């Protein structure tokens, strides 16, 4: 007996345990819903967050600068392992900038040192734009020596080994820049596939332009250089020279004036424009550099201000224009360092402060002496992850964390003046074929597109959806209602890809062809309905009583079909009569309205049909569940059914109707496939109903598969998704709150 009861007890204990475990499990499973939603929220945020992170500059190593004499130029290879230095003793020195024990390398260790020329021979020095990665010494006798630091990468023992070497161009021989062999005091050099171009200033102050064209012998493959020399007339003392890497422009600075010369493809030089910097506002010019892509000039001033200029199309052609200025503090700008690919630049101030800016986003990213180091000279590696700074004979390597300088909150939502554009504007253009391209991330046009699409859809869906809901819930006979409600609701289940396909390939050409008919339908159908109602009210009672009031909707179906058919049949006639047989031509020529085949009207209709069932279903529920005693009371007091509807039913159900519209709006905002297929997806900002748009969701669908993981573009697309999430979250939560309160209200009535 005792053993029996203990057995029972044990069995019960295990049952209770199971019960408790089930409770825990189910509770956990229930909260999974919440966890899933939170996970989506926080994951989107986690991906988006880095674009708003501020720049971090962390010291990594520091060591005495190898080599001799004064530094002419510093450089780094792209992995940030090896740096190099050109000095005024004619030496190029390669050194490790980070410790790498596996290859017995320590920071500061010299890996390769090469004497390029005699120190006494050097008269001037210049570096090309960072992407072009060449350095040139001007030598006595009007000659120039071109040097390119190179790196070979191999993988012995599955580890990356980078070894530097130097290539001296023209088989190590200097090129003759001045035929008269005068000394060159200043030199600037750039090159492209077939041409090398030099501009130089002689000791006497003459400005020279020298070009070398490479000609390849078809038979032997031997390359010969064909030189052309010319002197450009110029009066005054030249302070600085710059040349664009496409070899088409030469800039000569004299004090606060910059002369811009055009160099034609066959080498003819003509002066194009004279830029005059505002001395009072900006101070004296200290240095001029070309930004990555070489479309912009950035000018450093002794007031600490930096100005950006680029070419803007105007009546006199494309001229340089002052665009914007940056403030790097009160100390004069000593040097400007540009990045390889992005529009980010670094400025070194006379007081040793390092400043980081991004031009397009007007971002002011960093102002500080990094880790207390007074910077005299600096250089950034091609990937913009490492910065090498010279300070009192020591080199300091910094880790730079500046992943997304091109994205700022204001850049996303305000007008931005992009390179080459005539004025600031909202533009979304994330990619292009060219490397010099500056990505344009403005969320305004695509957010506008989203709102436009949703607005036109709602314009179409709200009247029809609500009216249909009111009639179905309030006037329709129950037997008909039982069939009508699921029929309309089944539309919600239709895949939107099918609606989009029909809108794009069937409706859009139809609308284009029968535009007048389309417009006529909008006018004629309501008129026909009222006319039918009027005729019906005049019909003898015995006919009317055969069809109950609740079946008016069915009665109207053939009439609407007939009117629609009539309107479409009339369409070519109307077109002929009113618009000279060509509506599109009329719209474009007479009214100046652009007409796209896949336009907002098509999207409005197609997406309207996707939204109608949502609005219909919720609003119908709300109207239907208005307590019967309210309506019956109103009718008993002598109000007509219409009065009861507008004054009692709609008022009572208004929160539910609001909730229906919110839900519908939420759906319209997030809809992807219909917009993707039924519009041209051009990000334009125009309310024109005959033009398309690009929405947030369609933009994600189009661009996400092509964006590089972790890039600014990728994160901005996540931001777009996050914006959509927040939008719909607000709509849905508001709608749900209102609906719950309404339910409580009804239950208390």
């Amino acid at each position, binding site marked *: 007996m005792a053993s029996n009861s203990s057995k029972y007890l044990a069995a019960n204990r295990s*049952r*209770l345990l199971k*019960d408790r*475990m*089930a*409770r825990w*499990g*189910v*509770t956990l*499973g*229930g909260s999974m*819903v919440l966890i899933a939603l939170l996970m*989506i929220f926080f*994951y*989107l945020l986690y*991906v988006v967050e880095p674009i708003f992170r501020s720049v971090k500059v962390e010291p990594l190593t520091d060591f005495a600068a190898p080599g001799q004499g004064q530094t002419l130029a510093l450089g780094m290879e792209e992995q940030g392992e090896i740096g190099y230095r050109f000095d005024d003793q004619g030496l190029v020195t390669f050194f490790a900038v980070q410790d790498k024990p596996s290859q017995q390398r320590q920071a500061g260790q010299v890996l390769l040192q090469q004497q390029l020329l005699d120190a006494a021979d050097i008269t001037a020095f210049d570096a090309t734009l960072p992407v072009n990665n060449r350095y040139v010494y001007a030598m006595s006798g009007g000659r120039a020596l071109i040097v390119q630091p190179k790196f070979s990468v191999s993988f012995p023992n599955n580890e990356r080994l980078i070894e530097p070497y130097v290539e001296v161009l023209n088989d190590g021989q200097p090129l003759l820049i001045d035929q008269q062999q005068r000394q060159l005091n200043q030199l600037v050099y750039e090159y492209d596939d077939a041409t090398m171009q030099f501009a130089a200033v002689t000791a006497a102050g003459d400005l020279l332009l020298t070009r070398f064209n490479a000609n390849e012998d078809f038979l032997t493959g031997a390359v010969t250089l064909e030189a052309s020399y010319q002197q450009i007339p110029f009066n005054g003392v030249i302070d600085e020279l710059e040349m664009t890497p496409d070899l088409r422009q030469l800039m000569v600075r004299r004090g606060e004036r910059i002369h811009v010369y055009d160099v034609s493809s066959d080498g003819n030089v003509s002066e194009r424009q004279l830029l005059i910097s505002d001395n009072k506002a900006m101070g004296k010019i200290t240095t001029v550099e070309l930004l990555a892509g070489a479309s912009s000039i950035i000018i450093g001033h002794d007031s600490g201000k930096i100005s950006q200029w680029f070419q803007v199309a105007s009546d006199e052609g494309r001229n340089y224009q002052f665009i914007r200025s940056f403030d790097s503090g009160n100390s004069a700008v000593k040097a400007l360092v540009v990045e390889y690919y992005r529009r980010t630049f670094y400025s070194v101030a006379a007081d040793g402060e390092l400043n980081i800016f991004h031009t397009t986003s007007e971002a002011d990213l960093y102002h500080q002496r990094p880790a207390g180091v007074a910077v005299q000279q600096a250089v950034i590696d091609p990937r913009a992850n490492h910065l090498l700074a010279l300070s009192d004979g020591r080199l300091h390597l910094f880790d730079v964390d500046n992943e997304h300088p091109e994205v700022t909150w204001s850049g996303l939502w305000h007008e931005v003046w992009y390179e080459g554009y005539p004025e600031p504007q909202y533009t979304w253009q994330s990619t292009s074929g060219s490397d010099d391209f500056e990505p344009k991330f403005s969320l305004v046009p695509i957010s506008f597109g989203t709102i436009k699409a949703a607005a036109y859809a709602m314009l179409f869906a709200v*009247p029809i*959806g609500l*009216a249909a809901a009111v009639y179905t819930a309030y006037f329709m006979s129950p037997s008909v209602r039982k069939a*009508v409600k699921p*029929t309309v609701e089944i*539309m919600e*289940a*239709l*895949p939107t*890809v*099918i*609606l*989009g*396909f*029909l809108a*794009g*390939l069937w409706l859009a050409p139809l609308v284009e062809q029968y535009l007048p008919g389309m417009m006529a339908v909008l006018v004629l159908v309501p008129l026909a*309905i*009222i006319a039918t*109602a009027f005729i019906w009210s005049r019909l003898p009672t015995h006919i009317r009583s055969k069809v109950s009031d609740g079946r*008016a*909707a069915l009665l*109207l*179906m053939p009439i*609407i079909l007939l009117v629609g058919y009539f309107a479409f049949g009339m369409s*070519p006639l109307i077109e*002929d009569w009113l618009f000279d*047989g*060509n509506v599109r031509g009329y719209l474009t020529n007479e009214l100046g309205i652009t007409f796209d085949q896949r336009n907002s009207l098509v999207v409005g209709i197609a997406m309207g049909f996707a939204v109608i069932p949502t609005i219909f279903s919720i609003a119908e529920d709300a109207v239907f569940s208005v307590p019967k005693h309210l309506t019956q009371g109103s009718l008993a007091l002598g109000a*007509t*059914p*219409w009065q009861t*509807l507008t004054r009692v039913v709609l008022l009572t159900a208004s929160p539910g109707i609001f909730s229906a519209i919110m839900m519908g709006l939420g759906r319209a905002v*997030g809809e992807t496939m219909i917009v*993707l*297929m039924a519009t041209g997806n051009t990000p334009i900002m125009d309310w024109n109903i005959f033009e398309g748009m690009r929405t947030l969701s369609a933009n*994600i*669908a189009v661009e*996400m598969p092509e964006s590089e*993981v972790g890039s600014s573009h990728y994160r901005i697309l996540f931001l777009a998704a996050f914006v*959509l999430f927040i939008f719909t979250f607000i*709509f*849905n939560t508001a*709608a749900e709150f209102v609906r719950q309160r309404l339910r409580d209200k009804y239950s208390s009535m």
Partner: protein
Amino acid sequence: MNKWFKTGKPWIWLTAGAVSVSLIAVLGLLLLIGWRGLSFFWPAAIHEFQVTAADGSQRTLIGEVYDSEEIPVTRLEESGVFLENYEHLTVERYLVKIGNREFVPLDFTWVLETSISADQQPADLAVLERSKDGNFYGYVTDVLENGESVVDDPAQLRSLLFERIERAVALNEQATELEEGEINHINYQLNELRLERRSLELKGELDATAEQRIAEQQAALREQYREVEKHLFDFREQARRDAVVMRDMRGEQVRIPMYRVLDANFPNDMNVFEKTGHFFAQIGKFVSQDPREANTEGGVFPAIFGTVFMVLLMSIIVTPFGVIAAIYLHEYAKRNAVTKIIRIAVINLAGVPSIVYGVFGLGFFVYMVGGSLDQLFYPEALPSPTFGTPGVLWSALTLAILTLPVVIVSTEEGLSRIPSSVREGSLALGATKAETIWRIIVPMASPAIMTGLILAVARAAGEVAPLMLVGVVKSAPMLPVDGNFPYFHLDRKFMHLGFHIYDVGFQSPNVEAARPLVYATSFLLVTVIIGLNLTAIGVRNHLREKYRALEQ
């Protein structure tokens, strides 16, 4: 009249009109898709038009009338076409599909009704379905074997033709079987060996014996491959034997190799029964064959398979979570703030745009989870990703989150319909809450769970936007299920009916030719989804009736 307006009657009629418009839209849409989708399979008559051009020259057009439209004469005149002795304001024109893609610049051409001087439908006109360059229209004039005519009696022409086509099709099928079966299997094994070698190398366990073993296996497989390849070439060679000679609309004799011909028809010579038979045969082909020519011809079998497989996988994931969440909300949750928040979370999960799920799925599942899985379990395949790339598993998971609210809402509705007397009775008899739920409530609610699942499946089958990011492709060379171990390849990409519609309708090079196929695919998808929804509604109504009876 004014008084009549005051009664509000016209406004009531206007609201009724809104219902009519909605109904017309729904039914019209379904009819349109049904009509266009099904007429694709019906054998269309082939016309032989004599067309007179503006300069008086005559030419013959052979093809199907594809579409027709009325256009205003004025528009024609603007484009430089003037019709003489024509009184009406509009004129009808036909879009004719003339096929024969390799001989004409465009396989569709517009013909004005007024320029047609004769229209015949000769019974001898044939349409050849081909594996390349689309349909061929013309008269069959000869059947060749090794370049020699085999037709002695013109009456036997058709039977000879069908016989030879059958032979070529059978040979092609055998060749494809070899390719998809044995050759595919050998390639798969070779790849596995390569991965095994790399894996051993990474672990540092690649010694001489292992290397030799792998090399031997590879050599054996290659030998086997050569053997199979010989068979394959043999089949192809045999299929090359025959050809058919056709006279096309230019009046020229064209020789078409038989291995390119899939089927031949004489639609003008068919009676209604034959046409019906052909209609169903075409439907059968459509659902069972692979697509051809960049998806613009052939069937949609891989898309159907991909959709069904992904949806099944999703159901397996979503059902337990959805049911447990519903049970929690209805049976366990107290009326407190947390419950309220969870309910709002459910509503929001249902309302978040599907593309956001796609973005989340791509970032979280594919790159984060998939990327980590690759690092941990598939280092040998890196840098080419295994799970760190969009695939069917991630699609199923993403859609599982998307359809979770559907299952929850439906299941909860079912739970709320079970009378509380049932629960109380079970508890009074001594069952624990867990036992009550597991043994009594869940079985009773199972039709509701079923309903939820059906609705979820319908939703998932139609969803395209998120899938475009997490795993769907326009053409998947391999199905996610095949004869190679482990048989289910959840990392593979797949084809999907909805995406197929988007892709063929909007991204294909020849949209005009592909359009009927898109309608047919749409019809298939709509049929499946409406069918599923109607089933769900049916099950739900049945359930309501049942419990109403139980309560009384």
